[in-house]
Every structure is written in structure tokens, then in C-alpha cells.
């Protein structure tokens, strides 16, 4: 694990002004670690990750990417600055081919590096290499997820944000996707993983946050959450907690 690549301080975000969904969340993710975010439905996990990606208005707080303030930066510039985001749904362009997606990702790299990176990406994702001319709309759910991750990783980001990458996938495909995430983590990228598939995510994550009602209920080692009752207690008990728990709950 290296230095903090993504720092979010006291972030307040939501669809409408005056109705925050994420309420004063502070968060860090460092290079070479997977940080999992859990929480019940409506806890603000996806809103938080969208705010980090630049798709959600932030009414308070600050965000630093590799030490650079990105709080007011548009989403496309965040992508160019090294923040890659893979949405949960609609994460590929159905009418574009697999190769088109990789070329869109490669467009963020210097021209001389593009072909080599596309080749490297196809080596890392052999399933996609066999279907490079296939329209993304014809891929299976798992293949779309892999394509979306491949497109994001190809940009050589500092931070990779993933919103429920296992949603709708078979257990075998979840295994495949998570195995790829470990490889990507090992390259020094910080991975932020919003996930409902708790046990699978805990198996690969170093640290975890638990969100409840838009606030952080837990921030600490992922291993401490492997006991199911601990997580359940966090989900249910936060409403009356005065402050977030740090470390072992």
C-alpha cells in the first residue's frame, strides 16, 4: 500500500440542493489497496461514488486526487486526471464494438502508448480479445462488466471506482471479475468498490467503510467485518450513534 490517492473530506452530496444523501463523509483510498463500501439500500453508497466521479453535485467538502483538488472538476477532466469509474448499470455503449470501447479508453493516453495498452488490455481480458469486433450490446452481463472494467483500467488510472460490479452476475463470473480486480490492485491502482456481495468483497478488500443513512458507520480493516453479525449490527444501529466507529467495531 502506498500514499493516499483519493481523499474526500466532509463531502455533502445529493440530487437536489438542501436534500443531501451523502452527509459529511470523509474517505481515503491509497495505491495498491481495495477499499470496499457497504451499507443497506439507500445508504448513499452509489451517490457517494457518483460524487467522486463528478456525476453528482457536491454542496460541501473537498476532493483531492493525488493531491490535486478536483472538487469542481467536470467528470471528463477527472477521467483524464486519473479517476476511472465503472457504473453499476448502463456501463457500456451497446452500439459500439469491444474494440471501440478500448479505443475510447486509449484516447486518454499519449498516442504512442495507445496500441500497446489496447494489446495489454486484451491480454489481461482474453474473453474480450476473442470478441473485439462484437457490439457491446450483444455481450453477456459478465462480459459487459469486464469490458467496462477493461476500458477503465486501460486509461491507467490512479483510482478505479466500481459501483456493484457483481450485480446480476453468476457466482463464477463474480469470481472472474474479482480475480481481475486483485490483479489490477497489484499494479498499484487504488480500487474503491461499492458492493452488496459482502463476503466476496471482504475476501479481496484491505479496508472497508460502512455507510448508513448517508454517514459513515464504520471505517477500518475489512477483516473486522467478516463476522456477519458485526455488519448486521452496524446496518441497524447507526441511527442513534453519535459518531463513526474507527477500527474494530
Amino acid at each position: 500500500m502506498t500514499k493516499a490517492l483519493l481523499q474526500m473530506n466532509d463531502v455533502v452530496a445529493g440530487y437536489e440542493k438542501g436534500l443531501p444523501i451523502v452527509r459529511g463523509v470523509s474517505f481515503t483510498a491509497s495505491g495498491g489497496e481495495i477499499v470496499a463500501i457497504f451499507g443497506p439500500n439507500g445508504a448513499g453508497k452509489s451517490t457517494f461514488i457518483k460524487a467522486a466521479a463528478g456525476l453528482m453535485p457536491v454542496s460541501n467538502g473537498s476532493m483531492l486526487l493525488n493531491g490535486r483538488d478536483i472538487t469542481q472538476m467536470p467528470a471528463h477532466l477527472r477521467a483524464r486526471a486519473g479517476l476511472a469509474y465503472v457504473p453499476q448499470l448502463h456501463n457500456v455503449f451497446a452500439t459500439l464494438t469491444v474494440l471501440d470501447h478500448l479505443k475510447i479508453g486509449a484516447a486518454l493516453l499519449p498516442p504512442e502508448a495507445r496500441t500497446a495498452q489496447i494489446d495489454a488490455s486484451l491480454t489481461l481480458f482474453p474473453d474480450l480479445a476473442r470478441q473485439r469486433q462484437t457490439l457491446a450490446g450483444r455481450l453477456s452481463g459478465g462480459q459487459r462488466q469486464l469490458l467496462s472494467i477493461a476500458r477503465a483500467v486501460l486509461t491507467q488510472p490512479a483510482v478505479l471506482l466500481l459501483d456493484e460490479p457483481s450485480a446480476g452476475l453468476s457466482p463464477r463470473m463474480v469470481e472472474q471479475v474479482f480475480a481481475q480486480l486483485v490483479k489490477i490492485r497489484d499494479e498499484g491502482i487504488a480500487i474503491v468498490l461499492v458492493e452488496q456481495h459482502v463476503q466476496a468483497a471482504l475476501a479481496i478488500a484491505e479496508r472497508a467503510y460502512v455507510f448508513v443513512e448517508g454517514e459513515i458507520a464504520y471505517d477500518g480493516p475489512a477483516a473486522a467485518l467478516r463476522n456477519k453479525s458485526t455488519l448486521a449490527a452496524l446496518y441497524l444501529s447507526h441511527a442513534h450513534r453519535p459518531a463513526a466507529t474507527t477500527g474494530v467495531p
Partner: protein
Amino acid sequence: MDGTLAGAMIALGAIGVTLTYSVLQFSNFAHGELISIGAYITYLIAAAISAAVIGSSEALAVFSFGWNVLLAGGVAMALTGFLAWGLDWLLFARLRAKGMAITLVMASFGASMALRAMLELVFSSRPLYYTQELQIARAIGAGILVTPDQLLLVAITATLVGLLYVMWAHTALGRAMRAVSENPALAQVCGIDVPRVVRVTWYIGGALASAAGLMLGLLVQVRPQMGFEMLLPLFAAAILGGIGSVPGALCGGLIVGLSQAATVQFIGAEWRAGVAFVILLAVLLIRPNGLFGRRS
């Protein structure tokens, strides 16, 4: 040949309509006026060149017009592209920021009327001509008669559509435009500068509209109503081809143009305008996604 030419003109306009619709998700009813404005800008620049360079308006080889018209047409494409972009900046971008799709459509109606009225105010309703030369059609086989102007215009259209297709299908800009048309939010997080893609879309749409105006002006005449009268065929072609499809707009334009010519030939000229309406209705009822459109 008349049908092919009409189809080519309609296709150039329909491509602009389909690009605007697919990238910005709204029907721009002011697109016809971009055709008229392009034709008038061409006229003004051609007249200026003619006044500045003696002999520039003399008929070029077998054609009925001088090189001043061709040069003016190219400059007018560039200027009309900027004008379309300016229209978006002045009007549509502000409404788009408020997220009201129906307001955009109504605003385009308003812009259409305002621009048409402005053309009438400045130029009056009197028709203008790029050239007064007459051309004799020549037989090219299979009973087809064609003038050199017509052949040149078909070649220009084929070149423009070919270039546009290469851009759309094989370049980074084309991929970005296709991505934005399908999912602007995802395009953003992929690093695509969506506002820039929007500007380029307006620019290309305006430039192609201007080319259609040049064709219409050369083959018929330049009038303030010329673009407005093309509006129904443009939308019929764009919808027939499938909104968002460049090849679809080309095929749709040719089908509408050939259908109009066949109607004049076999039924009567008074039914020509109704053909586009019938095609539009038939497509909406039978195949709403058009020939090349993607299913929603």
C-alpha cells in the same frame, strides 16, 4: 435523376437532423433555416468574389456557374457551421441546462420563424439565382438525361457523405459522437468532452445544411422559404433511416427523393409534397425505429 438529386439534398439535410437528434435528443425545427441561410451566405460571398475578381463568375468548363460559387459554397459551409454553433450557444444550450426537452423543441420552432422572417426582411421574398446560364441535359444511357451541374452535385454529395461516414465510423471524434448519442453520462466518465462533441455536432449539421442550400440554390433558386419547405422531407428521411443513423439518413433521403420524383412522374406534381408526409406516417406506424435505427 431528379429523384436522386432531390434525395441527395434531402440526405444532406437529414444527416444534420439525425445528428442533432441523436446527440442532443431533440428535434431541431430550425434546421431548414440553416439550409436557407447557407444558400444566402453562398450567394453573398459569390457576389463579393465576382465583384472583386473579374471573370470569376464565368461558367466553369461544362458547368453553368463560375468558380466563385464553388469557393463561396465552401466558405458558407464553414460560416453556417459556426452560425449553428452560435445558435446553440445563444439559445439551445441555455434551455438544455434547465433540462426541459419540450422547451427546446418549441424554441426551435421560434428560432425557425425568427430566422425566416429575418431573411425576408433582409433579402425580401424575391428569388435569387447563382447563375442565369441554361444547361441542356445530355443522355447518359438507359434513357436518363442529366446536366453537368447535376452530376457534379451528386458527386459533391457522395464525397461529403463518404467523408462523414468515415469520420462517424472510424475516427475518435465519430466514436465520441456515437458514445454521447447513446449515453452522455457514461461518455463523460470515459473522458469524452461532451460539450465539445455537442459543438462539433452543431457545426457539422450546419455545414451540411449549407451544402444542401447550395445545391437547392443551384438547381432551383434561393428564397427565404426554401429550407422550411424541405423540413418535412428532412424529418421523413431521418425517421425512415432511423434516428441517429448516418447511413440511414442517406438511404432515407434517397428513398424520399426518388418517391417524390416518381409521384411527379406517375401521379401528379401536386402530390409531391404529400409523399414525405405519407412516408413519415407509414414509418411511424409500421417501423418506428426506421430502417437502421436501434430498438429502444
